[in-house]
């Protein structure tokens, strides 16, 4: 039997209380393998998911979500245009 994280969906419910992902451009810092990304990405206009763990982000990239761009980089190395995202999400990464 596999490990199952937050099957209750508590994390996404809590996020939904404080921010809307609907049609927003999202930068997720610390996406890892996309455990959280996969739960909200369909609502967002676009997602840039970054994590320095190359192996983990490869797993997310393999999902080939059309609106998700995956980068193997940490926040300190990220190059992004000024004021180009609507939501920045530190996913257990601060």
């Amino acid at each position, binding site marked *: 039997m*596999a490990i199952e994280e937050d099957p209750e969906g508590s994390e996404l419910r809590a996020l939904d209380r404080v921010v809307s992902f609907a049609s927003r451009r999202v930068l997720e810092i610390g996406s890892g393998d996309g455990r959280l990304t996969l739960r909200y990405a369909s609502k967002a206009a676009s997602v840039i998911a970054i994590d320095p763990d190359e192996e983990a982000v490869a797993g997310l990239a393999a999902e080939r979500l059309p609106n998700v761009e995956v980068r193997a980089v940490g926040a300190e190395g*990220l190059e992004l245009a000024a004021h180009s995202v609507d939501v*920045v999400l530190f996913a*257990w990464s601060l």
Partner: protein
Amino acid sequence: MVDALRRVRGMVTVDGTVVDVHPTASASAIEVETEVTGYIDACDAPLRHAAADAAVAAAVRDGLYAIEQAVEFTFYTYGGTIDELREYIRDSWRDARIDEATVGRTRDALRRFPGSRPRSRERVVVTSLRPRRGAGNGV
């Protein structure tokens, strides 16, 4: 950590939102149903989580952001067995472990609650931050 908050402030739109999700500094438990069988030895994780709290507080104090909302929730991770959960935590968490006594108590509890799965319980806080105008764009 404050540097990261300062940096992304220049990336988000002026009416955008920065959201931080991280565990609280409280101890993470191992449970079977609602019975606590022990706590995860998470090494310095509480200190790291407290540092994340401090980074948010510093960014607010420095005038970079205003806190909009903060919401706490419980995050459960289930294993098929206690051995599977222990292995997952050992491999996925930084320097964390479940000790033998907790493993033994969990096995006892699983015998009392047939069909149940062991789980870890973490308290997590979600904080939404609004960039404050005129505090520099951080780029």
